């Protein structure tokens, strides 16, 4: 039975809780709608259950309480996942790594080649097919990882602090590229970060979380996303608003 949750919610979480067998309560009473086409950021301190929400949405873990409703058919192609680390297979070339999701769907190398080329071009790595992960920089590996997540054209792209380990220059570049990718592919993005600036820069909506147990404290909608640059007054104001919300969340 579908519950009322806005016209275009792709995924709805209703009173979701997650308790691990060891007895740790990672999440309690989480209500969240993920709307088609949005760029939602989950922002919060370490250990507030941000990554747990992503894993639940991806179906990698099961909820222990409440319910999680997905309103799209998931046949193993609807969701792309980008981990904190690039998580590439070191024994495979760039092509092999991006080809993997297609290969697992039974495609041959030949028939998959156009899709792989396109995904690599999208992340600015055209012509790097034959390189091996160890030959690439951290930023380039992350691009390969993103290309892999996009190669099946997923409805929903889940990203778990993908740029946390990168230097600021690479991170800014990838932030901009991610926004472009989102526009080009039309994917809905759920992005986990603990950077206030990143959340303010990327999102159309920020869900601020607190820990002990993990929960969503407040949501901030960015009405005028990315109209200005990182220097604009609107961006500064949003950063301040998010920062204040986070401070409140930590106090609770």
């Amino acid at each position, binding site marked *: 039975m579908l519950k009322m949750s806005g016209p275009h919610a792709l995924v709805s979480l209703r009173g979701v809780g997650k308790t691990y067998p060891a007895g740790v309560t990672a999440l309690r009473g989480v209500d969240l709608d993920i709307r088609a086409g949005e760029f939602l950021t989950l922002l919060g301190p370490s250990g507030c259950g941000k990554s747990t929400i992503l894993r639940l949405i*991806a179906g990698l873990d099961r909820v222990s309480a409440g319910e999680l409703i997905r309103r799209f058919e998931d046949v*193993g*192609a609807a969701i792309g*996942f980008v*981990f*904190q680390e690039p*998580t590439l297979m070191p024994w495979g070339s760039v092509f092999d790594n991006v080809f993997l999701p297609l290969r*697992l769907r039974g495609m041959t190398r030949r028939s998959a080649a156009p899709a792989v080329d396109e995904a690599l071009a999208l992340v600015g790595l055209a012509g790097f097919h034959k390189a091996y992960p*160890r030959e690439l920089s951290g930023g380039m590996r992350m691009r390969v990882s993103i290309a892999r997540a996009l190669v099946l054209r997923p409805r929903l792209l889940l990203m778990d602090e993908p740029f946390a380990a990168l230097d600021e220059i690479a991170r800014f570049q990838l932030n901009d590229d991610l926004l472009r990718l989102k526009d080009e592919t039309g994917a809905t993005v759920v992005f986990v970060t603990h950077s206030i600036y990143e959340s303010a820069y990327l999102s159309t909506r920020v869900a601020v979380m607190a820990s002990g147990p993990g929960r969503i404290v407040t949501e901030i909608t960015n009405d005028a996303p990315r109209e200005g640059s990182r220097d604009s007054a609107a961006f500064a104001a949003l950063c301040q608003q998010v920062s204040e919300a986070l401070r409140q969340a930590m106090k609770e």
Partner: protein
Amino acid sequence: MTSVMRKPEWLRRALPPALVLIATLSLWEASVRLYAIPPYVLPSPTLVLTTLAADRAILLPALAVTLGTTLEALALAVIGGVALAVLFSQSKWVERAFLPVAIVLQVTPIIAIAPLLLIYLDARAAVLVCAFLVAFFPILSNTALGLASVDRNLSDLFALYRASGWRTLLLLRAPAALPYFLGGLRIGGGLALVGAIAAELAAGAAGKGAGLAFRIIEAGYRLNIPRMFAALALISLAGIAIFASLAALSARLLGRWHESALER
């Protein structure tokens, strides 16, 4: 002045061990001649070499037998070790049930099992089983470790894309386990030779006309010390050849991706 002409890579690698080898052999040869040590106490390297050449009709077939047994045992250990490791990775129950058996076989010195095997089996088969037993465990334990050491995120990714267990094994676990397997193979290769020699020694006269270790015992009875040294040299060379070829295999398979195969 620093030399502008740099020596080629292989020469820089091969030169130090070659120098040590030549120095040792020269010292040995010189000592034997200087102190007039009789050959039945310590033969000179040149005498060992000439004995090797003179007795080749006896020693080379023996080498072929020992090496054949070793390689056969190693091949069986690879098949058995990998198959059991895959089984372990698929079922915790199988692992709990069979790992102790494998450990008992491993910690019991092979030289102590050999006499028993020689009663049950004919000499050739007993030697083969001994060599198999010692080579088997490192391959099993390393491969099992490798199959269990898969990156968690990658395993999640395979789950996300609904990969079957079989495909996950083939595309993820097997390549992840490869460096571990190759490490086990290198140890197993050396041990297979040790196992074969130890079993041949235990077989003694029962292994008549068989491998190199038998020729060593036989030469020992006749106090033919130079031939003992010649046989020993052949065993060493066989061990080096096994190690070198497995190292080359490893470098070839891991070449572009694994840290261990990096040029430093």
